[in-house]
């Protein structure tokens, strides 16, 4: 019990003094997950719009499949990417294994289904009268799409937040394709909050783990708080 209290106090000290190791890991986590979220958004939002407004055979089944992939296990994604980019894999020549790039790829793939699915939900929740109003005001196809997206902007923003939350909090893929490497340079290291917590805990550095855990929580809460603030404005 005493160890835990001491751990928490030490953790707070590490955060308040902006401990360089903790901060580097936190910043790296944010950079990697944010990049993955941005890339996933670039694909997921147009894809979600295309599926929502499109009429093609198998549309319902596709939406079902996407929803099933919401619960895609992170280690499975990690394993898949690992197999693809390991030395013997088809993309082995690119030397991506155990790099931040590999982690970004894995996280992008991990959150793509949930972001696409939530984009579809966000767009289909827009009042049909609003859609009719846009058409009756003489919108071109592009103007129509842009304005429906605009109308659903808060729900889409929440979608992005969910994607980022899932990316920054996953550990399975990060450890498989990232390898939790603490290299000399910031850019070639792959140690992020989740993998570091896992490592430090197993090594008995409880205070370090708690500090990193608090940072992770604060980031997650901060993102949600920001979204809620925007939505209520």
């Amino acid at each position, binding site marked *: 019990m005493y160890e835990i209290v001491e751990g928490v106090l030490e953790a707070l000290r590490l955060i308040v003094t902006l401990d360089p190791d903790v901060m580097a890991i936190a910043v790296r986590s944010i950079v990697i997950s944010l990049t993955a979220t941005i890339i996933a958004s670039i694909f997921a939002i147009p894809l979600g719009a295309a599926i929502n407004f499109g009429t093609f055979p198998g549309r319902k089944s596709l939406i079902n499949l996407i929803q099933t992939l919401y619960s895609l296990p992170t280690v499975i994604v990690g394993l898949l990417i690992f197999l693809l980019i390991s030395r013997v894999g088809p993309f082995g020549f690119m030397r991506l294994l155990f790099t931040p790039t590999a982690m970004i790829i894995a996280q992008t793939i991990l959150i793509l289904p949930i972001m696409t699915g939530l984009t579809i939900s966000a767009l289909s929740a827009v009042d049909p009268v*609003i859609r*009719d*109003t*846009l*058409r*009756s*005001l*003489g*919108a071109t196809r592009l103007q129509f799409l842009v304005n429906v997206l605009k*109308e659903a902007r808060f729900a889409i923003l929440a979608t992005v937040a969910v994607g980022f939350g899932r990316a920054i909090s996953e550990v399975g893929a990060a450890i498989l394709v990232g390898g939790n490497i603490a290299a000399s340079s910031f850019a070639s290291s792959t140690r992020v909050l989740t993998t570091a917590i896992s490592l430090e805990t197993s090594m008995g550095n409880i205070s370090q783990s708690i500090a990193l855990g608090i940072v992770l929580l604060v980031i997650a809460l901060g993102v949600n708080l920001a979204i809620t603030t925007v939505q209520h404005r």
Partner: protein
Amino acid sequence: MIELDNVSKYFGDTRVLDGVTGKVNRGEIFAIIGPSGSGKSTLLRLIDLLDTPTGGAIRISGTEIHAQHEKDLSIRRMMGMVFQKPAVFNATVAENVAVGLRFRGASKSEIDARIGEALDTVGLASYRERRARTLSGGEMQRVALARAMVIEPEILLLDEPTANLDPVSVAMIENLVVRINRDLGTTIVFSTHDMYQGQRLAHRIGVLMNGVFSQVGTPREVFTLPASREVARFVGIENIVEGVVVSENGTSAVDAGGIRIRARSPFGAGEAVSLCIRSEDIRIAPAIRGRRVFDGNILPGTVTSVVPRGPFSRVTVDCGFALSSILSWKKVDDLDIREGSQVVVSFSPESVHVVRRE
């Protein structure tokens, strides 16, 4: 301006519109009235290119609007539409009104000026920077109207624009409709299930029933000379009596279950008809004073019910068939009319409108 040529629309096996034919003239206010579910919204949506007809053609200024897809946008941009459910974009009032102008690539200064004018017209000038979602239903509907008219459409389509609004907002919207038509010359087509609204606003009315226009005419024609029993019922004629035309000394008469009713009708003897008589045209007097000086229909009967209706009472009399009239409370008291009273009912042959029974 707008020609409807045998327009039909089926949703699966449901025939919502089944051969609507009619014409809306340039610059007029045309009301589509009909009971709920008669296809009023569907017809407006077809005109606004929001749905495609199953059959028939809709022409605007001679152009068949559903035929050419590449012309879709220019035709759609001739029209503005306001929907039954007030809906605003999640933005400020000004941004809401600006949408159609932005679609047309208007300059910022032009948009600013036009928004000002439009909001002035609908009386929401001080709401310019308010978030539209915070407005009441009536205010939202006025924003929707400003948004539709700011693009200066040639045709304004209004789908039951006042259906869910309070009486004050209804009066405001109605007033705006008349002003837009008068000041800008906009052709306006609106739907309503409120026949009195049709009467107040429209130059002409189309009565949509069973998927077709049962009647198209001026409000006066529709209300005084309904084309069928169903139209008569819809426009609020309470007394509809079935009968058969018989000829009687050269003048027309109708036999209604053994009772002779004098009426003017263009139909020949033996024709099955319905007689439509407005409650306002029916007089009720106590039986004892029923001296036959009146040259019309005088029928003795028994009062079956006296039902209050606002400041009046509806008195229903059984004279072999039921006839009802509207009397003031005072009159009911003065004449001492109550259930079971013996009375005489009278009405002139001119107040009987005869339609063929189908």
